[in-house]
């Protein structure tokens, strides 16, 4: 399976994300913001960081790149899975590939800490811990997205509506989450629960 790890100017979690994907058996490649065709990849990863400095609003400027253009056609063709972590999630929301938006944390500060979460995938619920690290991670939406939510905070760190930490689009081909699974992957001190997220993605891909 082949995964692309997207590197915008200002992205900074690509190394860990790539390492985690490779540990999960993906063949991975970095792609930059000018990439116009993503068809060779089964899975596109938008990793964390501060794309274009997160100026104006997190994820906003990245939206205007050829890469995000090509994400639209990737989705249209139903080619593979797209996953956005942290800044990647913000970009997907700004690009309206996922519903809702991520706005400034209620505490008005950057928050970096390990948080307990409930992972709810295919009907099985599980408690996991993942680190979060963001300033604009409060999820806001209108309408009802509950059936697409797969990750909720058990101790809400940012004021997200309904404790939402991660969700799918309605076809379950695009997923976004604020916590960093790639940071809970290699080291007992931060746990290994991140692997659960990569497993879901792999299962999604197998599902075809």
């Amino acid at each position, binding site marked *: 399976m082949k995964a692309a790890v997207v590197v915008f100017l200002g992205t900074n979690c690509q190394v860990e994300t790539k390492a985690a994907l490779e540990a999960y058996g993906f063949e991975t490649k970095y792609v930059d913001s000018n990439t116009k065709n993503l068809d060779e990849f089964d899975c596109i990863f938008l990793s964390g960081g501060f794309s274009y400095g997160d100026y*104006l*609003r997190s994820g*906003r400027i990245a939206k*205007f790149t050829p890469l995000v253009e090509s994400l639209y056609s990737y989705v249209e063709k139903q080619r593979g899975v797209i996953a956005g972590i942290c800044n990647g999630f913000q970009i997907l*929301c*700004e690009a*309206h590939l996922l*519903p*809702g*938006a991520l*706005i*400034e*944390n*209620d505490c*008005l500060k950057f928050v970096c800490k390990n948080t307990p979460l409930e992972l709810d995938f295919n009907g099985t619920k599980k408690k996991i811990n993942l680190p979060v690290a963001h300033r604009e991670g409060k999820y*806001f*939406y*209108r309408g009802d997205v509950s059936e697409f939510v797969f990750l909720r905070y058990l101790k809400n760190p940012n*004021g997200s509506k309904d404790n939402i930490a991660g969700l799918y689009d309605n076809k379950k081909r695009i997923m976004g989450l604020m916590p960093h699974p790639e940071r809970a992957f290699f080291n007992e001190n931060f746990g290994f629960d991140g692997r659960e997220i990569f497993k879901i993605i792999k299962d999604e891909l197998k599902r075809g």
Partner: protein
Amino acid sequence: MIILKSMKNYAAKVIVSLRDDVKDTQGLSVDKMLKRLNIEENANFRTGKFYSFKISAQNLDSAKEKLNFICSEILSNKVVEKYEIIDLKELK
């Protein structure tokens, strides 16, 4: 981009703020502070972002159109934000 001879420059000022159904946490925090400092009981703060910039266009109408595009597509996200043009005038 080809800049035509007939292009004029316009100065634009815009405010982008959260929609009314989105909690304005920053505003609430200033409210609290003013209350604590005994300055204002209930200031009902709303916050937004202010942008001023120059755009070039052939006439005021097309400047307006361009400005609306910039505001709706680049400076704001309609899911959570709204914008208000507070000034647009030709630069001489």
